[in-house]
Every structure is written in structure tokens, then in C-alpha cells.
């Protein structure tokens, strides 16, 4: 059967199909509750994986930024040491580009504190060399040794280096979050299959009668599918709203300025959890359809 057609038919709500299955209060509430709980967990897993993704992006972005070498030398040696540093960097593996910041850029860096017309050339201000690393990164210990031998005033400033394992950890957490989402989806499919299975078993006689009066399998299945899909949709919508409210109410750690980004949604990320109820409904639709058509197989 054409999928879009069957979805349309389904949403248009066959009034007759709705009533052919007797009401079943308990499995109904169980399914709605399961869907709500799973949606709640899914939203948190989603928040975790989005937040860790953001974290990994930010940290690896900072890693890709240039590290800097600061050359603090008496004015007359500054030029020579700068050249020495650049020469060293040319032969250092892991360095993509290196350049000494020209005076206007240095001035621009200092402008917020000293104003725009600072005569940097004549002041004993350290010369900065910007180093852009290749993807592999450079061996900072080796570079430090060579710098201290040939340009004693040069200091390699690689404060971002220690973040590399953190980026890996963040990426790992991101994967875990995605894995949790997958597990939650599968668990919900399994729970709904079980709930639908018990409803189907309880209604075997109904299915038999319907078959005997000429109902097609899809007609019978639709009654169950509709019921469980709508329950899963309602339950997961409630779970999603509650979870989003909880996350929204979490105290923000962003403005504490730490490296920790909050376990929350940012900007358009708030739209992501809105996908949870439709996905839950989709899962319920196929899980119930599968269970129903399988149960009908041995009813002639």
C-alpha cells in the first residue's frame, strides 16, 4: 500500500476503525506513561549530546587557533630573536604557518588599554609570533627546548593544549548521548510492541470475528495502530514538555564563564526536542503495525 496514502487515511481518522477494538484502560495508561517516560529521557539524552557536541566544537575550534610565542628581549635583540624563532618554526614539524605580528596588530591588541597611538616599536613590549598548527599538532616540549637554546627570550604559550583530551571526552560523551537516544528508541519500540501484543492477545476473538465478516488485515490492524500511535504521541508530548521545562529551569552555568557549557539547548537547538513526539508516534505506528499483522497471520 502507498505509504503517504495510508498515513493520510490514518490521520483522517476512520470513525469506524476507532470503535472496533474495545477500550482497554490499563494498557492505554501504561503505553502513555511509557511514552512519556521515554520522551523525558530522550530529551535529556538529546540535550546531553547537543551540549557535548557544542563543547567539542568550541574546544577544538580554540585548539585550531594559533598558539603564540612571546619574545621578551631587550629592544636591540628583539629583531634577531624574532628571526631566530621564525627560522626554528620553519623547520618544526607540525607548524602550518608562523608569522610575527606587525606593529599595527600589536597596537590593536593593546589599544583597549593604552589607546590607539601607542608607539609599540620603541617600547620594550614583547614581540608576538602567531603559530598555526597542522592537524597533527606540534611537539611543544621539543619546540621549547630549541627555543630556549636559540632564542632565550621566547616563550611558547600553549595554554589550550591541555584541552585536547577534554575534546576527546566531549566527543565521546556526544557519542554516548546519541547511543542513549538509539537505545531509548529501541526500548520504546519494544515496550509498545509488548503492550500492543497484550492488547492483541486480549482481542483475538474480536480479530477473528472481523476477519470472518470480511475485514482486511490492514483494517483490523489500523484500529490498534491508531490507538497506540495516538497514545504514544500524547504521552511523549507530555514527557517532552516536562523535560524541556526542567532543562529550561536548570541554573545556567554559562555566565559563570567556565569552560563548562550548560546541559541545555541553545538557540535553534530548542527545536530539536520537538522532534521527539513525532518520532515516538512513528515508532509506535510501526511497532504496533508489525505486532498486529503478525498476530493476524494465524487467524484464517
Amino acid at each position, binding site marked *: 500500500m502507498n505509504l503517504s496514502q495510508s498515513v493520510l487515511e490514518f490521520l483522517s481518522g476512520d470513525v*469506524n*476503525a476507532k*470503535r*472496533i477494538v*474495545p*477500550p482497554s484502560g490499563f494498557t492505554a495508561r501504561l503505553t502513555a506513561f511509557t511514552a512519556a517516560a521515554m520522551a523525558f529521557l530522550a530529551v535529556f539524552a538529546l540535550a546531553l549530546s547537543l551540549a557535548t557536541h557544542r563543547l567539542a566544537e568550541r574546544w577544538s575550534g580554540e585548539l585550531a587557533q594559533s598558539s603564540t610565542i612571546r619574545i621578551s628581549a631587550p629592544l636591540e635583540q628583539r629583531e634577531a630573536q624574532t628571526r631566530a624563532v621564525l627560522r626554528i618554526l620553519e623547520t618544526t614539524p607540525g607548524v602550518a604557518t608562523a608569522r610575527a605580528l606587525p606593529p599595527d596588530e600589536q597596537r590593536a591588541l593593546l589599544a583597549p588599554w593604552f589607546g590607539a597611538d601607542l608607539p609599540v616599536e620603541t617600547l620594550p613590549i614583547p614581540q608576538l609570533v602567531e603559530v598555526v598548527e597542522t592537524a597533527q599538532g606540534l611537539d611543544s616540549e621539543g619546540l621549547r627546548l630549541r627555543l630556549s637554546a636559540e632564542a632565550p627570550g621566547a616563550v611558547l604559550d600553549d595554554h589550550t593544549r591541555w584541552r585536547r583530551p577534554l575534546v576527546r571526552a566531549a566527543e565521546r560523551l556526544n557519542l554516548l548521548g546519541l547511543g542513549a537516544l538509539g537505545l531509548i528508541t529501541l526500548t520504546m519500540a519494544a515496550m509498545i510492541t509488548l503492550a500492543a501484543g497484550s492488547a492483541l492477545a486480549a482481542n483475538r*476473538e*474480536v480479530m*477473528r*470475528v*472481523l*476477519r*470472518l*465478516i*470480511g*475485514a*482486511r*488485515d490492514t*483494517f483490523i490492524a489500523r484500529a490498534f495502530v491508531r490507538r497506540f500511535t495516538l497514545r504514544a504521541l500524547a504521552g511523549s508530548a507530555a514527557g517532552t514538555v516536562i523535560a524541556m521545562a526542567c532543562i529550561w529551569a536548570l541554573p545556567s552555568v554559562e555566565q559563570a564563564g567556565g569552560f563548562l557549557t550548560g546541559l541545555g539547548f541553545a538557540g535553534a537547538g530548542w527545536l530539536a526536542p520537538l522532534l521527539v513526539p513525532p518520532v515516538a508516534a512513528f515508532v509506535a505506528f510501526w511497532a504496533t503495525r508489525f505486532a498486529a499483522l503478525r498476530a*493476524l497471520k494465524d487467524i*484464517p
Partner: protein
Amino acid sequence: MIELSDITYGYDGSPLLNGISLDLSPGSFHFLTGPSGAGKTTLLKLCYLDLKPAKGTITVFGAPSEKLGRDAIAKLRRRVGVVHQDCGFLEHLSLRENVAMPLAAAGQDPTQHDAEIDELLAWVGLARRADALPAELSGGEKQRAALARALILSPDVVLADEPTGNVDWEMSLRLLTLLVELNRMGKAILIATHDLNLIRAAKAQVTARVLRLRRGQLDVAGVDL
């Protein structure tokens, strides 16, 4: 319209029906008699493809049964009205909704057929019980409701298993009249019954063949009936 040829059937191995042939052609009227446990209900179940024969072929509206998929079987069953011996209603629905259910199952809107439903319910004398649940009906009322449900799609074949078992004589005749009427419109009718008076009453109105099922064999009963 339904043709059984050389059918053999038995529940879990023990033979019950042995080389049975039967042809329900348009406009034919059959009675099926035989001792209790002879296999009348079983034979009817074979006719509406609820059971698969161990041997032999069943042809329904020209299609051999073993070639039919589940959806095709569902469609064919809409052309075969069955009054089941054990009725089989949806217990959570009213009598009226049960009678209308074949319409819904066939993809029609029951609300478009209100007049036909009312007419049928009136004919079987259940107009005032339309909103009752099946559990609230007497045995005879259930049988009449089952007949109404079997006829709602105006099927080409009617298979009725003891349709008058719990009904008084007057009502039996009324139901028979309904079936005779349908038979005159060209429908094939098969009634399984023990009620010899009913058979006699029918023979006064139509040419009916009386079949007797005994020890796995199907014979045409004598003219004495």
C-alpha cells in the same frame, strides 16, 4: 459460486469429511442435515475458507482457494453471508453496530445505510433491541441478529448454521421467508439444520435439495422429506 470437489478434512488427523463434493450455484437452495457432530459446521467453515481442506479443491467465485491471498479472501467473504452457530459478535458494540460492522469492514460508511439496517432489524424483529449489547440478548435474538449481519452486504451466497435453533416456529417461518425471498433474487442459500419442519415448509415454496452428512459422506436425502 462455491464449489467443493472431493474434499477431505479431519481435525488433528482423525478423518471427518471424506471426499465431499458440493456445488452451490446461483439460485440454488440447499439444506444440510445430519447427526450432531457429523461435520456440518466444519463443512460450512470450509465453504467460507475458515478451514483449509486436507485434500480436494474449493473454488469460490471462480477462484481456487489455494491461490487466494488474505486480502482476496477478505473480499470474497463480503459476498458470502454467514450465520455462525456460535454467533460471534463484538461484545462491546450494540446490536445495531454489530449488524453494521460488515459495511465498515468493506470500507463503506454505515451511516449511509441507516435505512437498510433499520429495515433488516425490523424484518428479524429486533428493531426495539437495536441498542442492546450482545450479552443482553436471548439466544434466539442473537441468531436473528446474526442473520441480519449476514445479509447486510446483500451477499451472493448465504450460509446459515442452525439459524432457527432457538427461535419459535412463527419466527422460523418469518426468517425462512426472508431467505426464500433472497433465493428468488438468485442468491445461493445453504442452511444447516436439524429442523425437519423447516425443511418441509421450505420445500413448499422453493425447490430445495436436502443433503445428509453422515460418516464423512454427503448424500442427497430421499424424497420422503
